[in-house]
C-alpha cells in the first residue's frame, strides 16, 4: 500500500526502509523521485549511483538502474557510466562523509571536469552508519563520538566547495524545504554539466542526540525557523549567518561539459584518420 509516486519509483517490496524513525533520508529520496517524475525522464535512462552510508542505501530502494558501490567512490563509478553512455541521467546519492571525507578528491575533480552528472548530498553532519563520528560538515563546537568535547575543525560548505572546484551548478536545500529542494534537484538534472544539491538532512539518532537537538520534529522546525535564502545570505556577515540554514541556488554557469568535449576529440581524430586514408 503506497502512493503512486512510491509505487512507480521505489521497490515497495523492500519497504519500509531500515532508516531510524524521523531520519530525513526518506524525505530526500522522495524528493529525488518527485524531481524525476516532474521532469518526465525515461525510467531506463536514469542511473542511481551510491557509495556507503545510511543514506547510500537509497540506491537499494529506488527502482531504476542502480548501483551501490564502495565508500567514497560513487562519483568514480558514475564518471565511468556517464562516459560510456553520455545520454544517461546519472544521479549520485551520497552522505556528507562519503562525498566530502573519503570521496572528497573525487568530488573536486569531477566538479573541475564539469562532467554532466548530478550529486544529491544527504548532509546530516555526521557519520550515521558507523555510529556518530564527526564528519567534515559537523559544525565547529558540535559533538560526535570522536569529538566528545566538541569538534575543533571548521566545517566544509559542500556546495561552495564544489563550486569553487568548478561545478557549474550548485544549490542547497533542506528536508523541511521540500518543494524548493525538488526544484533544485530538477534544475540540477536538467543542467548540462556537473551539478550538486547539498541537502541539509537530519539524523535524530546520532547527531541530534549527541548535540541535544531534540526530536526529528524539533530539528525540522529549526530548519524552518533558521532558513535564509541564498540571495539574502550574500548580504549577511559570517557572524549573522551563524547557525543559519542557507537555501537556494548558489551558482549556475555554463562551461563545456566533459563528455561532449571528449566526443569532439573522438570525432576530430576520426576525421583526421579519414583524411589521411584519402590522401
Amino acid at each position, binding site marked *: *500500500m*503506497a*502512493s503512486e509516486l*512510491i509505487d512507480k519509483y*521505489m521497490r515497495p517490496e523492500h*519497504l*519500509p*526502509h531500515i*532508516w*531510524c*524513525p*524521523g*531520519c*530525513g*533520508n*526518506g*524525505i530526500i529520496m*522522495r524528493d529525488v523521485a518527485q524531481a524525476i517524475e516532474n521532469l518526465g525522464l525515461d525510467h531506463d535512462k536514469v542511473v542511481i549511483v551510491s557509495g556507503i552510508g545510511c543514506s547510500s542505501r537509497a540506491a537499494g530502494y529506488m527502482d531504476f538502474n542502480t548501483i551501490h558501490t564502495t565508500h567514497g567512490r560513487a562519483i568514480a563509478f558514475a564518471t565511468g557510466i556517464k562516459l560510456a553512455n553520455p545520454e544517461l541521467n546519472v544521479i549520485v546519492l551520497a552522505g556528507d562523509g562519503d562525498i566530502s571525507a573519503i570521496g572528497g578528491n573525487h568530488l573536486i575533480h569531477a566538479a573541475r571536469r564539469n562532467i554532466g552528472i548530478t550529486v544529491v548530498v544527504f548532509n546530516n553532519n555526521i557519520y550515521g552508519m558507523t555510529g556518530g563520528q564527526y564528519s567534515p560538515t559537523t559544525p565547529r563546537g558540535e559533538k560526535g563520538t570522536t569529538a566528545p568535547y566538541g569538534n575543533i575543525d571548521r566545517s566544509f560548505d559542500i556546495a561552495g566547495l564544489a563550486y569553487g572546484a568548478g561545478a557549474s551548478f550548485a544549490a542547497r536545500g533542506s*528536508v*523541511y524545504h*521540500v*518543494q524548493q529542494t525538488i526544484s533544485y534537484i530538477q534544475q540540477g538534472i536538467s543542467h548540462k554539466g556537473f551539478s550538486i544539491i547539498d541537502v541539509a538532512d537530519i539524523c*535524530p539518532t546520532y547527531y541530534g542526540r549527541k548535540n541535544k537537538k531534540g*526530536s*526529528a*520534529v524539533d530539528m*525540522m*522546525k529549526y530548519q524552518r525557523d533558521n532558513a535564509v535564502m541564498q540571495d539574502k545570505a550574500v548580504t549577511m556577515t559570517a557572524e549573522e549567518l551563524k547557525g543559519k540554514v542557507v537555501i537556494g541556488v548558489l551558482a549556475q554557469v555554463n562551461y563545456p561539459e566533459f563528455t561532449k568535449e571528449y566526443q569532439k576529440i573522438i570525432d576530430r581524430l576520426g576525421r583526421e584518420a579519414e583524411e589521411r586514408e584519402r590522401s
Partner: protein
Amino acid sequence: MAQKKLVLNSAWCKGCGICAAFCPKQVLAISGEKVAIVNQDACIFCGQCEQRCPDYAIYIEDNEEVGNQWVRPY
C-alpha cells in the same frame, strides 16, 4: 469531481510525529507508537504530511476515475 482521500499505511509508520507536527489542521496525532487520523473531515489535502513523511506511510489518494463516473457532459 476528483475524490481525494487521506490514506494511512500504519505498517510503514515509525511514529516520528513529523506529519502531525506540520499538518495545519490537526488532522493527525500520535497515539501510542504510531500516528492516527483523528479528524479526517478537517483535511484540506494540502499534502504537507505526505511530502515530509520519511516513511511514505501517509499520502493523498486522488481517485479520479471514481469521481468521473458521476460527470455528465450535458
